[in-house]
């Protein structure tokens, strides 16, 4: 049986793992390679490494960090941040990434999704969407807007529409981050995740708001997520993936144990 995936995310800035709350107030959480291995040993199903300031500061992805992280890591590794071309993606794959996550650059030039998929397969391209609800709307989930550049710039595009376009252009998965829930540890945005998951046929990874096992169970159930990603609850030893997945199993969620 296909299991629900628990993904540990490492937000990297300047070669260090950092963690913010609602995309700001950033604090240091350690070395990316060391943390990736610790997460893998603790039962994470995948590792995502996001260079969160690459687009903002106009830098390329930290290839050396990717190389060090990928060394002896035998579970899937996704890398995102600053990937603007198929060449950028190739460099990241050559450094040991299994998938790339593209965000701002896919909005700027949606053809990029297909270009990377052409060479590396659709399954290797994750389109990351940073979503913020429209608090003034009568349909805050349905009207949720896509933000880019690390959550700094609104695009005027609706999240569900963009997810559908990304799928149609050949994305292999959608990584949906709720900016409203991010860092709050108050639970994922189940409603928005379900909207997106039902709108596309490709897997959806929920992100933002993980605080405990129930939040994961909710987003896999109500939220219809195929995978869920978290950062701070793992970094600071609140829980580890094995403990989390044992709780999920008791709640009836299929997980790899």
């Amino acid at each position: 049986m296909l299991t629900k995936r628990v993904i540990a995310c490492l937000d990297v800035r300047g070669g260090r793992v950092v963690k913010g709350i609602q995309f700001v107030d950033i604090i240091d959480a350690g070395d990316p390679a060391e943390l990736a291995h610790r997460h893998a040993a603790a039962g994470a199903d995948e590792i995502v490494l996001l260079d969160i300031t690459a687009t903002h500061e106009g830098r390329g992805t930290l290839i050396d960090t990717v190389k060090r992280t990928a060394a002896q890591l035998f579970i899937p590794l996704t890398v995102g941040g600053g990937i603007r071309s198929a060449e950028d993606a190739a460099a990241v794959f050559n450094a040991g990434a299994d998938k790339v996550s593209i965000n701002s650059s896919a909005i700027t030039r949606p053809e990029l999704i297909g270009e990377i998929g052409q060479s590396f397969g659709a399954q290797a391209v994750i389109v990351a969407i940073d979503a913020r609800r429209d608090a003034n709307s009568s349909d805050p989930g349905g009207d949720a807007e896509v933000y880019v550049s690390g959550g700094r710039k609104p695009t005027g595009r609706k999240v569900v529409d963009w997810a559908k376009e990304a799928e149609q252009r050949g994305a292999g998965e959608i990584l949906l981050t709720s900016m409203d829930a991010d860092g709050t540890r108050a639970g994922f945005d189940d409603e928005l995740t379900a909207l997106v998951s039902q709108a596309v046929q490709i897997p959806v990874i929920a992100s933002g708001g993980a605080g405990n096992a129930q939040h994961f169970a909710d987003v896999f159930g109500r939220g219809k997520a195929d995978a869920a990603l978290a950062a701070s609850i793992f970094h600071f030893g609140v829980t580890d993936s094995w403990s989390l997945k044992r709780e999920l199993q008791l709640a009836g969620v299929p997980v790899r144990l």
Partner: protein
Amino acid sequence: MIQVIDYKAGNLTSVVKALNYLGAQTHVTQSPDDVRNAEKIVLPGVGHFRATQLLHDLQLTEATREAIARGVPFLGICVRLQWLYEGSTEADATDGLCHYGGRCERFPTTFEDAELKSPHVGWNSLENIRPDSLLLRGVSPGEYVYYTHSWRAPVDADTAATTFYGGGFTAAVERANVMGVQFHPEKSGDTGLKILRNFVEL
């Protein structure tokens, strides 16, 4: 020495890394002569079935066929398991190696009245493991491996293990020296390393 074929489609870094981690000596090659004279061959896979054309263009298909015929252990990964069959609906005009019968097809969009997501991404279990499989020696039914694919190979007598997603498909195929795995052993944690070690130690 394991010849790892580089056909410039997808990434083989992870496969080489895993084989080296297990102590195997590897050589990344595009040369038909290297393949023809290989002791062992690994053909990593990620990407489109169409990339098969490049194997033909580089004369690697014929070289592989010759090596296989003299008993050289061969392991195809992911889309390269599919290559061992007659072809795939992903690229109808491109022939496979035709070592195994049948064609690869896309996952259905619905299964048992429910929508089925595609690609099939994530950790799924190996079932119906053939007891005589050398590649899967020491692997128990229910062990998890990592998948990411939209096309799959049919189940037949050469199937060494199945996985269930929208029905059963071939997770691993093995007849004598010719083996393939649909999952990514290089990304499947300890179970994947065990399978690669079995191949390295053949």
